[in-house]
C-alpha cells in the first residue's frame, strides 16, 4: 500500500510519535488530547481510581451479602 502512495507524494515513515487527535463526537472535547504524555510515577488519581474500583465492588459484595441474609 505504501508504494502506491509514494509515487504521488513524499513518503514519510512515522516514528514513535503519538497522535493527539480526538474528534470522537462523544467526547465533546474536539482538538483536546486525551493522552497523558509519559510522566513517570503513580499519581493521586491512580490511587483514587483503584480505590473507587474497590469501593464499587465492595458495594456489590454488600448487596450480595444482604440478599444472602434475606434468604436465610
Amino acid at each position, binding site marked *: 500500500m505504501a508504494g502506491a502512495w509514494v509515487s504521488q507524494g513524499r513518503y514519510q515513515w*512515522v516514528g514513535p510519535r503519538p*497522535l493527539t487527535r480526538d474528534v470522537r463526537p462523544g467526547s465533546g*472535547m474536539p482538538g483536546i488530547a486525551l*493522552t497523558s504524555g*509519559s510522566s513517570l510515577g503513580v499519581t493521586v488519581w491512580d490511587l483514587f481510581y483503584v480505590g473507587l474500583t474497590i469501593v*464499587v465492588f465492595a458495594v456489590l*459484595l454488600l448487596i450480595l451479602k444482604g*440478599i444472602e441474609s434475606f434468604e436465610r
Partner: protein
Amino acid sequence: MNDTLAGWLQFLFLFAALAACYVPLGNWIARIFTDKNHWRVERGIYKLTGIDPDADMRWSVYVRSILAFSLVSVLFVYLIERTQHWLFWAIGMANVTPDTAWNTAVSFTTNTNWQNYAGEATMGYLTQIAGLMVQQFMSAAVGLAVAIAMIRGFTRSRTDRLGNFWVDVTRGVIRLLIPLAVIGCLVLVAGGAIENFANYHAITTLSGAHQTIVGGPVASQESIKDLGNNGGGWFNVNAAHPFENPNPFTNIFIIFMLLLIPFSTPRAFGKMVGDNRQGYALVAAMVIIWACAVGGVTFFESHLGTAGVGPQLAHGAYEGVETRFGPHGCSLFAVSTTVTSTGSVDCFHDSLTPFGGGIALMDIALGEIAPGGIGAGMYGILVLAMVTVFVAGLMVGRTPEYIGKKIRPTEMKYAALYFLTLPVVILTMAAIAIGTHWGQSGILNPGPHGLTEIVYAYASQANNNGSAFAGLGTGATFFQITGGITMLLGRFAPEIFALGLAGSLARQAPTPATAGTLDTRTPLFVGMLVGVILILVGLTYFPALALGPFAEGLH
C-alpha cells in the same frame, strides 16, 4: 434498484441467514454447556490455574467468582493502559490519562465498550490486544455463563448448585467465541478489512495535504467486537471506517455477527430445558421487537418519513450517514446494535431524526432483550417472561408457573429488583448530570436534544451498550467517573439478582403442568410478553422519552 427494495432485500437476507443458524448454533451452545467431558486444552488451563472443574458452585459463590474475576480484570486493563508507553508495541502512544484509562478498563470489562477516546490515536497495539481484545472475549463469556447458570435454575431441582463459573467461561471462550471469531476475521479480511501490525504512515496526498494511514489487527478485533456484542472499535468512527467496514457486504456481515449468538441462545435454552417450543416463543418475541424497531427507524430515516426539502430530495436523512451504506444500511445497523448490547455504529446516532433516535434510545431502554447482549439478553428476557407469567396469573387466576417452576413471592422480589435496578441507576445519574454544573457544562446541545443525549449516554452505559448519541462532553472527569460507576452497577447488580433468582428456582422441586398452567409456548404468550416488555419500559421511561426525542420531533 431503488432504495426501499434494497432495504427490504437486505433485511430479508439477514433474517434468512440468522434463521438458518438458529438450530445448529443453538444446539451447539447447549452441547457446550451440558458436555460432561473437558477438552484437553481446557484441562490444561484448569491445571495451570488450579481450578477444580468438577466443583459445583452455589449461586452466591458463582457471583463472587464473577466479581473477583471482573475486579482483577479492571485493574489489569487499567495497569496496561497507564504503562503502555513503556511496554512493547506501544507504536509511540503515550500512557493513557487516569480518568480515561479507568473508564475504558471498566467499559471493556463490563462488555460496554463505551469509548471516550480515539482508538487509533490513543491505544498502542499491546493495549488493544492484551487489554481490550482479551476483555472482549472474556466479558462476553461472562455474560453467556450467567445466562447458562440461569437456565440451570430451570433444569435443576432440589439443589443450590448452578455449575462452575470458571468452566463455563473457559468453554464459552474456547468452544464458541474463538472458533467463530476466527471465521469472522477471515471473512472480513476477504471482504477488505485490514489485518496487520504495520506502523502508521504519513503520506502527502495529490492536493498536497498530509494524511496518516493507520494499521493494526483490525479485522480480528472487529470480529470479536461484534460476535461478543462488545462494540469497541479500533477506529474513532467505529464501523464507519473503510478499513474496518469496507463495503456493503462487510456491513451486512457485521450486523449478522452481532445478532448471531443472541438470536441462537433461545434455542440453547429450549434444548437445555427439553422443550424447543419454549425457545421458539422467546425468539419470536425478540424478532417481533427487533423487526418493528428496524421498520420504525427505517421509516423515519428514509424519504418516506423524513420531513424537510433537503432530505426529501436526497431520498433520506443523509446527514451523519455513511454514504456507502445509506439510510437503510444505517437504520438496520443502528437498531441491531441497540437491541443487542453491542454499541458499534456505522452512522452517527446523534444525526438520526428525532423519532429515529428515540427508537434507538427505546431499544436500549428495553434492557436489550430483543435479542439483547450475549447472555445478558437471555437472562433478561427470562426475568421478563416470569413477570409476564405472574401478571397473567393475576389477571385470569392461573397458577404462575414457568418451565415447571412456581413463580412465588421470592422469585418476584428478585425479578422486581432486577427490573428496577437499571431505571434507578440511569435516571438517578441523568438527574445528577442535569442538576449539577459539572454535568451541565458538558451539554453542547441545550433543549430536548440535550436531554436525549444525557439519558442516552447513561442508558447506553448502564445497559452495557456503549454507543454514544454524542454531542455531550463525556470526556470530562465528571462523566468518566459517573459513567464508570453506572457501567459497573448496570452490569453486575442485575447479574446478582438474576443468579439469586436462578438459585431460588434451582432449590424448588419441579411442578408438573396442570390445566391451570399458562402455556408459555403459544402465540398468546408471545403477544403478552411483548406487551409486558413495552408497557413496563413505556411507563418507566415515558417522561424522558416525551421530553427528549418526542418533544424535539414534534417541535
